[in-house]
């Protein structure tokens, strides 16, 4: 343990010294093709053909959606770090920032650039080097087709980098479905948050959303505390063999287990902002990365293979929980791969929300859609464009040295979480009842107070999660936050 602590400390210093970021870095590329807008902002007409009843049957999903690909393909992008002034940065766009061009095209009636510097820029108090826009980029890459050519509005030219930046900022606040709890710091490594998303959930989200609906799914690919939001363009599962079927465990005779292997891909955020994404073809390259995930899925009925080796029938996938302890299969990633293992959480974005406190409130998605997301751009005759103000300079970044600096935010200072000596601990004193509800039989006033199971309500301390056959993670150093 002491060796580990020493190694951890050394690594922590190394990581901080080199300014590890949550979202990435830079490279290069070419261009062309029209910009396409997001689906209509009003949803119902689009639901046609895009609405399905959830499917949990393993045989159906494995025979029909073993491979899935999002359409359109989410694009590679850039994370617009706060330390570089977010989308008020002129560094990547010839000295004029995307936010500054937006303000100019709108006749100076908006103040997106100054807001960005104050709220998403180097002027943010106690800024940390890893803060950026990777969540906005991920959502934008899923919701909007990739801008691939320049547009001009009111005489202001927006290049691909500008357009991607503005979409990224607008998508900082989106409506979305989430699956899995986020791990925030070292102490979470011994909490149930670490183990979700559970494999059955992972399988269901990918096959139902992306396999059946071609919907983009986003992941935090960093299993532990850092946050690396990335859009997933596709996934593949290997078809199971009869030898992968484990049957039921004697202690759970109605839970049937089968081993599966998947490859998940994600678009990169360490490319240059103006890059044009190469077509996705289920291979890792300069714009896409991949990871192999191994898991055990749990079903509520047996898997039957035919003589041809195909799955003929099966039960449904099981996803349930007790308190915060999510259950549904077991990850089989082996030892040591804790940070690059299963997604910390997954999410599916639907639409850009009106900005509140988090996205740049000067960006108007309707205006962007109407004037910037049309081929060539569309002038806004209601305003006269102003000259673009130069991008503000970047303030020197604060020291990222962990030595002597106070914890700037109300995040716990990292302390190694000792590995528990036994699991589970601290759970409810008794589990919930599993019988069908013996509901009260009397009327509203005369019914006796029903006697219930002993489990307390929503504030109950959560029991330990399952990890299945994977070691609980040892504490690793986290960035000071």
């Amino acid at each position, binding site marked *: 343990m002491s060796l580990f602590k020493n190694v951890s400390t050394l*690594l922590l210093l190394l990581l901080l010294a080199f300014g*590890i*970021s949550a979202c990435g870095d830079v490279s290069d590329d070419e261009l062309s093709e029209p910009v396409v807008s997001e689906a209509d902002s*009003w949803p*119902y007409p*689009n*639901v046609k053909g*895009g*609405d*399905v*009843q959830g499917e949990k049957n393993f045989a159906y999903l494995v025979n029909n959606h073993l491979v899935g690909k999002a359409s359109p393909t989410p694009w590679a992008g850039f994370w617009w770090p706060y330390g570089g002034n977010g989308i008020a940065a002129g560094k990547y766009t010839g000295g004029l920032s995307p936010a500054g061009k937006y303000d100019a095209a709108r006749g100076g009636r908006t103040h997106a650039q100054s807001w960005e510097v104050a709220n998403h820029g180097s002027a943010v108090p106690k800024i940390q080097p890893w*803060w950026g826009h990777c969540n906005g980029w*991920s959502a934008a890459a899923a919701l909007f087709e990739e801008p691939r050519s320049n547009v001009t509005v009111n005489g202001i030219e927006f290049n691909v980098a500008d357009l991607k930046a503005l979409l990224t900022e607008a998508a900082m606040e989106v409506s*979305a*479905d*989430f*699956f899995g709890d*986020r791990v*925030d710091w070292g102490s979470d490594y011994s909490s149930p948050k670490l183990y979700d998303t559970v494999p059955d959930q992972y399988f269901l*989200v990918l096959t139902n959303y992306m396999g059946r609906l*071609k*919907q983009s799914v*986003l992941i935090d690919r960093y299993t532990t505390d850092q946050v690396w*939001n990335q859009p997933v363009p596709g996934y593949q599962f290997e078809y199971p063999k009869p030898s992968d079927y484990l049957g039921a465990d004697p*202690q759970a005779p*109605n*839970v049937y287990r089968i081993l599966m292997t998947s490859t998940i891909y994600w678009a990169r955020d360490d490319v240059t902002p103006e890059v044009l994404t190469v077509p996705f073809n289920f291979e890792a390259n300069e714009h896409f990365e991949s990871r192999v995930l191994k898991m055990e899925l749990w079903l509520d009925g047996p898997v039957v293979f035919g003589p041809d080796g195909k799955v003929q029938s099966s039960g449904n996938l*099981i*996803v*349930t929980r007790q308190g915060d*302890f*999510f*259950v*549904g299969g077991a990850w089989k990633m082996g030892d*040591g791969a*804790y940070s690059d293992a299963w997604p910390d959480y997954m*999410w599916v974005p639907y639409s850009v*929300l009106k900005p509140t406190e988090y996205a740049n409130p000067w960006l108007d998605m309707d205006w962007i859609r109407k004037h910037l997301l049309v081929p060539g751009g569309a002038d806004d005759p209601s305003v006269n464009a102003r000259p673009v103000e130069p991008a503000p300079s970047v303030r020197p970044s604060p020291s990222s040295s962990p030595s002597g600096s106070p914890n700037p935010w*109300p995040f716990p200072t990292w302390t190694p979480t000792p590995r528990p000596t*036994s699991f*589970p601990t601290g759970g409810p004193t008794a*589990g*919930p009842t599993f019988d*069908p*509800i013996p*509901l009260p039989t009397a*009327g*509203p006033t005369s*019914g006796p107070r029903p006697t*219930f*199971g002993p489990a307390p*309500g*929503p*504030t109950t301390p959560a029991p330990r*999660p399952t990890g*299945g056959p*994977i070691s*609980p993670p040892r504490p*690793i150093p986290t960035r000071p*936050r």
Partner: protein
Amino acid sequence: MKIFCALSIVFLVSAMSGLTGADAMADPDERELYSKALSIAQGKVLRDRAAAANRPGALSTSSSALLFGRPYQKGDSWDLAVWRLNQTQEMLRPAPTLAASELRDPIVAESGLFRFKVIQVSQDAAPVIEIEVTQLRQAGFSLIDPAVERILISGDGNFHPLKKQYFIKNRPEPFSVSPNGIRKVKSLIDFLPIDFIPLDNAVREELRYPPRLPPAIREFAAKTGFKPDLSRSVWLEQDDFFGRPIQALWEHGDPWPSYIKTPHGIALLVRKGAL
């Protein structure tokens, strides 16, 4: 810098691997976790099977009738105040005013008031309860989606959802969606907890304390005198399609749960009884 970052990560993972080389399943702790998870999964399977086997055919003996105290009748009506919750997993939330424990709390977003009215009860072999749900512009609430005129939801006596239709302004035909379906596009109204919640395979528990409400909703609850009698209530824990929690507090005799929480919303029963 990129190279250094990459090297650091490789180094980190390598170091961890070297320290955790034992066969995972040989570890008694992990075996215990695995067993516990299997046991919970087994319980879920048995619960579902038992519920399916014991499902009554008549509305009078259904789960909802037992909780309500009688079968639903045409004209039954109640109002729900509903709030949408924005999850914050993906966000960087460095608000200095937030305690560490609050950082991942969802943000309370839009709120609305919805009137539920039973418009049809079928007592056939397959009983169906049809409820019309209408947004109200009252008591300071605005319309969450003004384009939606009303919604029709139907479910069986055990509150398994069967149908959901949106009636949109200026559209002659209703628009059907899969109840609890998976969609490419969603209106904000789709996130709200206004649907049937299956009751007969829910886990029920005793609740000693009222559910913790976010401050904005707590304030509303205090103002409106929202205070369910816990001694006459049942706490229901259900999983949604993806295993996420749906929680409800149903006070015996009420037509609908007093409190519902889903991953994306909270609902409070604010009016019950005939109009």
